[in-house]
């Protein structure tokens, strides 16, 4: 091996390390301004419209379909929940607060028997503008729902812009939802 090639070979570890360190630096910067979240669960729906579905409401009342979500007048949320889910009950307060601000929240009850659902809404209040029930859970699979509660942000063109797996928190409202509402207003 020529001395030059030997020198270059011995410089490879340094070069790799510099590149890796640069990458980590950018990642940390992105974590700092919330454009990178290692814990984020990717949603296949982001940037797309929800897949076709037509779900009934509770006890034969009117539910809603994907066509109802094509062009909402204002950005809105679709919230997946269930009466048997403890975090959903904790989230109910935040949803009530949000719906009081005029934000439309449409709810889809996931694998929930109607009597339990009715009791749940009576106890925890009904923050939902419209309500549908996914008794079979098939629509949830098509949406890629990870578990309830789960909330989707849909803009005025009907495209899903964000998804939160797990209960919404006050922190998510201030750091993520409020900027999104401003951006897609």
């Amino acid at each position, binding site marked *: 091996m020529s*001395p030059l090639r*030997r*020198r270059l070979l*011995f*410089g490879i*570890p*340094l070069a790799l*390390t*510099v590149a*890796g*360190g640069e*990458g*980590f*630096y*950018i*990642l*940390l*910067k992105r*974590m*700092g301004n919330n454009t*990178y979240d*290692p*814990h*984020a669960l*990717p949603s296949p729906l982001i940037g797309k419209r929800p897949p076709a579905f037509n779900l009934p409401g509770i006890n034969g009342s009117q539910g809603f379909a994907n066509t109802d979500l094509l062009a909402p007048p204002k950005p809105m949320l679709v919230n997946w929940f269930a009466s048997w889910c403890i975090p959903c009950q904790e989230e109910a307060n935040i949803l009530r607060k949000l719906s009081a601000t005029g934000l439309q929240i449409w709810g889809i009850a996931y694998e929930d028997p109607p009597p339990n659902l009715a009791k749940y809404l009576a106890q925890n209040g009904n923050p939902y503008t419209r309500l549908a029930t996914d008794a079979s859970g098939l629509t949830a699979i098509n949406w890629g729902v990870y578990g309830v509660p789960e909330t989707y942000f849909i803009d005025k063109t009907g495209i899903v812009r964000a998804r939160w797996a797990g209960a919404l928190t006050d922190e998510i409202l201030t750091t993520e939802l409020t900027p999104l509402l401003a951006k897609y207003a």
Partner: protein
Amino acid sequence: MIPELGHFALALAVALACAQGVIGLFAPTLRDPRAMSAASALALSQFLAIGASFLALIYAGVVSDFTVENVADFSSAAVPLIYRISGTWGNHDGSMLLWCFILSLCGATVAAFGQNLPASLKSRVLGVLGLVSAGFLLFALTVSDPFTRLWPPPLEGVGVNPILQDPGLAFHPPMLYTGYVGFSVAFAFAIAALIEGRIDAAWGRWVRPWALLSWCFLTIGITLGSWWSYYTLGWGGFWFWDPVENAALLPWLTGTALLHCAIVVEKREALKAWTVLLAIATFSLSLTGTFLVRSGILNSVHSFAASPDQGLFILALLAVTIGSSLLLFAIRAPVLAATGIFAPISRESALVLNNIFLCAIAAVVFTGTLYPPFANLLFGIQLSVGAPFFNQTVLPLTTPLILAMAVGPLLPWKRAALAPVLQRLWLAGAVALIVFLVVAANRHIIAALGLAGGAWVVFSALTDLAERVRLFRVPLGTSLARFSALSRALLGATLGHIGFGVTVLGIAGMTLATQKVVVLTPGHSAQLGGYTWTLNDIHDAPGPNYTQRVADVTLSENGKPFLSLAPTRRFFTAQHVTTNVAAIHTNGFQDIYAVFADEPAGSNGAELRLNRQPMAPEIWFGGLIMALGGVTSLSDRRLRVGAPSRKKKPAGAVA
């Protein structure tokens, strides 16, 4: 008052570490013997200062001084004493202080027991350690101060995370950190040697015990962590391929490679640059592991609430430490020429092969661990890399490693022939083949391969030993005499290989595990693994800072009860957290494992997870045997002769 003293001691330690770094590195250039010996004194006083600081934090935890934010947030008066102590390093700031404490302990040990080192080398080693220490102490002092005060103090602390209130986990971090940080000494030796531009057999002899000692601690630390996850998380597994586990495994892999190639430097003065690179890489991987855990950059079950600012600080530290050492390597290492030459089939080549496989595994694990964040960075996609990837890539690389590690120790140095060695391994080969055929007959090909591999490693190591004592060829008494005359280094190496083989046996056996999740009401039973598992009763039991529900389970075989298990669920009232304590019965070769997972509402019964895990205990026995092998090797006469001063006080030979 005590926390202020601790804080002051920490600040003092920064100053001492800076002085140690600067004086240690430049004194040899000035050829000033007094300055060179000052580095030792500074290292010892730095150790005392950090020790005082660490004791102050432990004291605050023990007396539950809630004016210290760290204590208020992560401890409480209600937890038992041992967890008030271990709670001090069960959180971000406290564990950084533990990290610095162990680093200074390493420096102090080199200063105290390194009398046989040339003065200039010792001074430079201490200088490097001082600089690293200064960086991390600054981190602890500025952005992660464990002594931050809180006023007004809360009446009661938040408490120790219930899942960490466990004896296995109380000692897992100190062991693991000693392993991680211990490699700083090998790193410092590598840097000092690069500065001096000289590496010889003596260097190999000095650096190896340090690498071996930290390797032992790292092995124990990983074993404890894996064992803890097995018996407390109640999922019946022992390894997640979680990023943080991988972060501990990576330095273990390169550290194991370092141990082996340092032998080549010591015996044959070859592979010098590669050994230096491994020493740098091992410590760098330890540092990177610390960074990954603390920056939150990876999605991991091991959460350390940390801010990106702290991540940036550590990244800067890493950049300086790793960057400058690799720059030094790029400039100085090309001149390190090997003096020993060896044939393609020889002990040296076998050790090179070992290094290739270990580093290949390390490279695969490294890539898999860091792929998700970098895929996001480069291609903008969010993905995760899980157990299937690691299992499918690591297993094929482990197979040749297992095959080769049996042959290597039997090969002579310089030049060897393969055929006679393979002939001597006929017994191990036969045992492995029988194991394979027996297990494969039951259609468990993966388990059969693994068990055969484990048997191959264990029996070949035993064959090596039997050959050396000429067992059955000379009278037994002569064999025993030959055995006691064997060098400890050789015994240690054999034990290390046997331990690895035993771990392989355990991991392979785990693939035969059977499990079942059942909901039982009292009086009913389930069948698993040939046993009848009956739930007798569910009852309450008191605990110090928790209440618990105990499920009373009886196992019977052919109608005869032979075992009672009492898996429990603990409710920690302070944190509203429930933990499961698995009931495990082991006979050394099989674990019977029951977890009380839940009491489903309305069912009036218990959800139980039942497992029968053959060979599971061998995973951790193997880890212990490996570490024991390391300790045996450390007690070798050659190393003791290398340090004449230790003859005067043998009790403190290895701190």
